């Protein structure tokens, strides 16, 4: 059996070389995401059976169930999927870009930069529409990413220096956020602290409409870029010699990574370690090719957030634990394991 099959069309300029295993894994994970989403929607203070949830989604459910599912549960599930996918893809891009398995937007301070401008936006631009929040956090994420590159640049960028300086920048950004919180009114303080741990508590359809266009466009863009990144993984010399514009591509990819991170942070706050975990799990499933990792990681990320948020919501009910607590409870030991595995490199 062949590992790849090709997809071409006679008239349109479409040509895809599809890894069969990736296709299967992606489809399976998409199905799993759907199932978990439906089950999770049903669980909570009032349990609704999965069949009832499906009925509601098809528009034939009971009145009370429809209200609960549509107004309270579903926005949170959808945001969870979107944020998970965004973080996972941001992580995959960054790891492909830096070629360092320890790189993740939250470890390198990019998420922190997004938080700084997001909190500042909430503080100083109260009059502006909240729709600009993803834009604000995108700017912060991009500035930190550029600063990171500039500071790590010394006749080229070594992955190690990049990670060290990233750790430093992360600490500065969290100090800056603390600073902003000290000056903010009490109401915002609570929200900001919850946000810093990462939580999708109390999101509404407004949040969904705020972030979904950004995330969908960016996901499509990142799929378009996959071919170029695949080549880049062989080294920038080879990528240059097959005609890639390496520096411009890198810059574009970096922007996409920061845009995805910024959008996710605007709603979910600093949900840590998802961006680190998802690409690694995907690599285990389908191998290191960037295109495969990207498409699989979308659903891996969504699943991680869905499951972590389900536990956060249900396990300690009526308390609602920030989802970030659980993602880092899984992610930090994994990070340590990676460190251990890489010990001789």
């Amino acid at each position: 059996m062949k590992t790849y099959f090709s997809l071409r069309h006679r008239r349109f300029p479409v040509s895809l070389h599809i890894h069969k295993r990736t296709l299967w894994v992606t489809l399976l994970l998409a199905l799993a995401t759907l199932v978990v989403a439906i089950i999770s929607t049903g669980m909570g203070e009032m349990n609704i059976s999965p069949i009832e949830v499906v009925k509601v989604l098809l528009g034939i459910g009971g009145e009370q169930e429809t209200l609960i599912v549509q107004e309270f549960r579903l926005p949170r599930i959808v945001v969870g999927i979107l944020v998970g996918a965004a973080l996972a893809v941001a992580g995959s891009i960054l790891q492909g870009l830096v070629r360092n398995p320890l790189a993740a937007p939250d470890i390198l301070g990019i998420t922190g930069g997004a938080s700084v401008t997001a909190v500042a936006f909430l503080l100083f631009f109260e009059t502006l529409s909240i729709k600009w929040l993803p834009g604000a956090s995108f700017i912060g994420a991009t500035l930190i990413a550029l600063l990171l590159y500039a500071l790590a640049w010394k006749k080229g960028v070594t992955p190690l220096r990049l990670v060290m300086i990233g750790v430093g920048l992360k600490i500065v950004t969290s100090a800056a956020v603390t600073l902003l919180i000290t000056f903010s009114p009490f109401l915002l303080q609570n929200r900001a602290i919850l946000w810093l741990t990462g939580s999708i508590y109390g999101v509404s359809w407004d949040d969904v409409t705020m972030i979904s266009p950004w995330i969908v466009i960016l996901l499509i863009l990142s799929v378009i870029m996959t071919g170029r990144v695949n080549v880049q993984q062989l080294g920038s010399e080879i990528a240059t010699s097959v005609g890639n514009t390496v520096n411009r591509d890198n810059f574009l990819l970096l922007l996409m990574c920061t845009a995805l991170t910024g959008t996710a942070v605007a709603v979910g706050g600093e949900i840590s370690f998802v961006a680190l975990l998802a690409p690694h799990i995907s690599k285990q499933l389908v191998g290191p090719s960037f295109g495969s990792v990207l498409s699989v990681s979308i659903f891996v990320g969504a699943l991680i957030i869905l499951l972590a948020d389900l536990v956060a919501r249900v396990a300690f009910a009526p308390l609602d634990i920030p989802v970030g607590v659980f993602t880092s409870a899984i992610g930090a030991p994994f990070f340590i394991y990676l460190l251990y595995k890489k010990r001789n490199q």
Partner: protein
Amino acid sequence: MNALLPNTFLKLLALCISLVLLGYLAFVSLVYGVVDTSWQTVIDAYTNFQQTNEHIVIKEVRVPRVLNAIAVGASLGIAGALLQSLTRNPVADVELFGLNAGAAFFIVVAVTFFSISSLTQFSWIAFAGAAVAGLIVYILGSFGRDGLTPVKLTLAGAAITALSSSARHGLLVLNDKALDEVLFWLSGSVGGRKLEYLLAVFPYMIVAWLAAFLLARPLYTLMMGEDVAKGLGQRTLFIKIAAGVTIVLLSGSAVAVAGPIGFVGLVTPHLARYLVGVSARWIMLFSGLLGSILLLAADIGGRFIAMPNELPIGVMTAFIGVPFFIYVARKGLERK
């Protein structure tokens, strides 16, 4: 390395200047603030105490604050110097290595599950937390063929910090009462702590300061390499364990008094080395002294920048420390 101060006379002179500077900062911190007073009032508060507002402020708020800053700053500075020689790592610090986070996590666990609030127990728990976190980071950092490297240590520290701080957040969400008790302490500050907190751990601090001074030279020998030190007849394991215990005592008692404060111990050993060159004991002495000065200055800065609000001192030290950290990381961590 060329020292700025090559001979003993200059070093003693610098010592005197630093002490005068420390005294001046203490004076500023005592006298000025939201309520401005005068030197005379400060003396009166002790010799001729009346129940006036100013006297109470000085006795109950300002004096403990200054003493806390000096003791904690010195401890953090010395702990940093010890860590940097023990791990042969220019970017070692109690915050970066997760010692602060470990101590904070243990204290939150103690308050949540065992309802502990006595001061002496607090400090022992902080010691335990710092020790466990430090040990884990040390073990994780020394995996692999090339032994302890700055990068591995920093990353292991970052992972341990992330893990314990998220566990801490989870516990605090579960338990509102603990949140109230601990949140203030977790923000890291030398103000608002009664003098008893400091007195409870002060004996440990003194012992650890003396131990650090005695360990300075053996550690310096150890820095030249394990084999060299053994060849010179040193019991290297004993020295390492003693240094580890001292670091834990210093950082644990600093955390017990002031909450997690980072980067003091990162900066001061570098400054000390720049000043006095390669003499181990002088480096230890100046690390401690500069630590006090730095923390006191950061505290004054935090109080005055946004008066009448206060900036958390951890924010101030991070803003001073991180640019320094980045500078050192850029300069090159590759061992020469």
